[in-house]
């Protein structure tokens, strides 16, 4: 461990493993402390130190979904990686762990020519959409919620008819629930 700031970051992650979610401001301060001290390579204590750096903390942070969803945290994690990767030993060790995550946070801006998933079909079709993220896709959540209690009938006529028939249990739930809107 070559830097007090790296040590502090490791201690924070050890004491609060989910700090990217529960204490993002504190995590950001810890990251900023390391970055501000080392961003200028000519004055960087980390770059001048020959001691072996503990890279586990920063590798874990880059792979964290909470960090990837928080632009400021992600920015500082990337700055930290840039600083650490100035040293040969760190480049070798980091490369084994971070390339996939780097590619993930650096998506190709070129428009894809692949077809978009058919969301309206997904709503009535019980098989899961392979493109959907089961943790975040609201369509999938709705489909999963309704499938056990909703009968869907599709009649192909000159004008397509779609009938949704709730089971008695769902009807009871729907009629006893209050509907909230943002208005």
């Amino acid at each position, binding site marked *: 461990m070559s830097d007090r700031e790296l040590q502090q970051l490791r201690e924070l992650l050890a004491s609060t493993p989910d700090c990217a979610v529960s204490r993002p401001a504190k995590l950001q301060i810890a990251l900023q402390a390391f970055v501000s001290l080392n961003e200028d390579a000519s004055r960087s204590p980390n770059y001048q130190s020959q001691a072996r750096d503990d890279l586990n903390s920063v590798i874990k942070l880059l792979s964290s979904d909470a960090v990837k969803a928080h*632009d400021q945290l992600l920015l500082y994690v990337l700055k930290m990686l840039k600083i650490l990767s100035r040293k040969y030993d760190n480049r070798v060790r980091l490369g084994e762990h971070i*390339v996939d995550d*780097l590619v993930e946070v650096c998506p190709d801006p070129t428009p894809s020519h692949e077809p978009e998933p058919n969301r309206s079909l997904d709503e009535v079709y019980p098989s899961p959409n392979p493109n959907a993220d089961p943790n975040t896709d609201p369509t999938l959540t709705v489909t999963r919620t309704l499938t056990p209690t909703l009968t869907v009938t599709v009649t192909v006529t000159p004008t397509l008819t779609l009938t949704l028939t709730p089971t008695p249990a769902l009807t009871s739930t729907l009629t006893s629930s209050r509907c909230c809107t943002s208005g």
Partner: protein
Amino acid sequence: MLHQRLSVACSAEASNVVLNICYERDNVVRLVSAGGVPPLIAFAKDDSHEDLQANAAGAVQSICFQKEGRTFVRELGAIEAVLPLLG
């Protein structure tokens, strides 16, 4: 707008990390396999964000220090992409 600006900053910083780690041959091979080169070339073409463009061009240069990287980058049309930057 803020989100977009920060995302661009993240992409620019990620390009810097790629620039550094791709001094090592094994990392170039990993990056090529993981599909990390096409975004860099797209960033290098995009003149709407100068920092991102410069960092991405630097990362492409780093990749090209290795034979595997050079070949792959050339096949992706990177020469045509970066030539306008010289003019």
